[in-house]
């Protein structure tokens, strides 16, 4: 059963592999150019494991930002993780010893792989989720180290490979659409986010979008209950 769980978890994590190794490499190169060696880079990828925040973080450490500014910026950039955690409370409920690590490693990509709550037949669900998180984390750390050590020397033109992350979310979106009858939540997310993108602009629409989505879904629940 464990061998099957490992195999299934690895298979599930493959779509994240290319994107994480490439983006991690980009992060390693950025750190190297900023004068930080492989230990700094590996430490950030190991202990933060937050893609976009690490890129922002390079700017903060090279600019010598204050601790308070850094704390606030981190919270603003990572606020979406609150929403990921809220929707995984029930799914991670019985994960026991795996749970702290699974919460620590809940990135956008791991979330998109695990948020539908399903696991393959015949696997230990908690070990499976733990391993998917661990595989993804290892790709990220490996990419960062590659970038830090090898710099810009890559054997083929990788322009556009970062699209694999977009593709990951589009595939999750499509699969979600095919497997559920109730399309109200997904359309709520789509419409609210587009609306906030138009109103707030591409630099600062994410937090308003999350608040609006939560508000609309809350109102919809009231309506749903009123009908029952």
């Amino acid at each position: 059963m464990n061998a099957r769980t490992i195999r299934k978890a690895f298979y599930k994590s493959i779509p994240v592999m290319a994107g994480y190794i490439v983006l991690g490499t980009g992060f390693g190169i950025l750190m190297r150019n900023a004068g930080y060696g492989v230990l700094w880079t590996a430490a950030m990828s190991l202990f933060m494991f937050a893609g976009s925040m690490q890129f922002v973080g390079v700017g903060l450490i090279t600019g010598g930002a204050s601790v308070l500014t850094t704390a606030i910026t981190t919270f603003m950039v990572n606020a979406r993780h609150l929403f990921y955690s809220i929707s995984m409370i029930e799914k991670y409920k019985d994960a026991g010893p795996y749970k702290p690590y699974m919460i620590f490693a809940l990135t956008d990509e791991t979330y998109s792989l695990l948020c539908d709550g399903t696991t393959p037949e015949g696997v230990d669900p908690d070990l499976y989720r733990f391993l998917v998180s661990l595989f993804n984390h290892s790709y990220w750390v490996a990419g960062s180290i590659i970038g830090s050590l090898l710099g810009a020397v890559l054997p083929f033109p990788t322009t556009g490979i970062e699209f694999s992350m977009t593709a990951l979310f589009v595939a999750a979106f499509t699969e979600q659409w095919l497997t559920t009858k109730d399309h109200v939540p997904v359309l709520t997310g789509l419409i609210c986010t587009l609306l906030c993108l138009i109103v707030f602009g591409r630099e600062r629409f994410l937090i308003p979008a999350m608040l609006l989505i939560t508000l609309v879904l809350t109102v919809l629940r009231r309506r749903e209950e009123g009908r029952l």
Partner: protein
Amino acid sequence: MMHSAVLIATMSIVTILTRFLPFVVFRKETPGYISYLGRVLPPAIIAMLVVYCLKDITPAAYPFGIPELIAVVCVAAVQVWKRNSLISILSGTVIYMVLIQMVF
């Protein structure tokens, strides 16, 4: 360098706190409202992440977001056809790379 280490520790701690906070607040029992959110938020957030990834497209200027549009349609179509995210992600990414390296 000492200051850099302090900042990295700060970022790490705040990131961990953000991820753990909801689990700590609702550790005893999950209120009905939170389990409702746990059910409806994932699809909504996936939609949000799709938009977030495509936010830098410029529909009014070359290449008008055409490579992204083609690749997104490809991923969705292959997903409907094969129901296998590995194949759909791989084909969409390869098409996108070919489009922006050789066509656009």
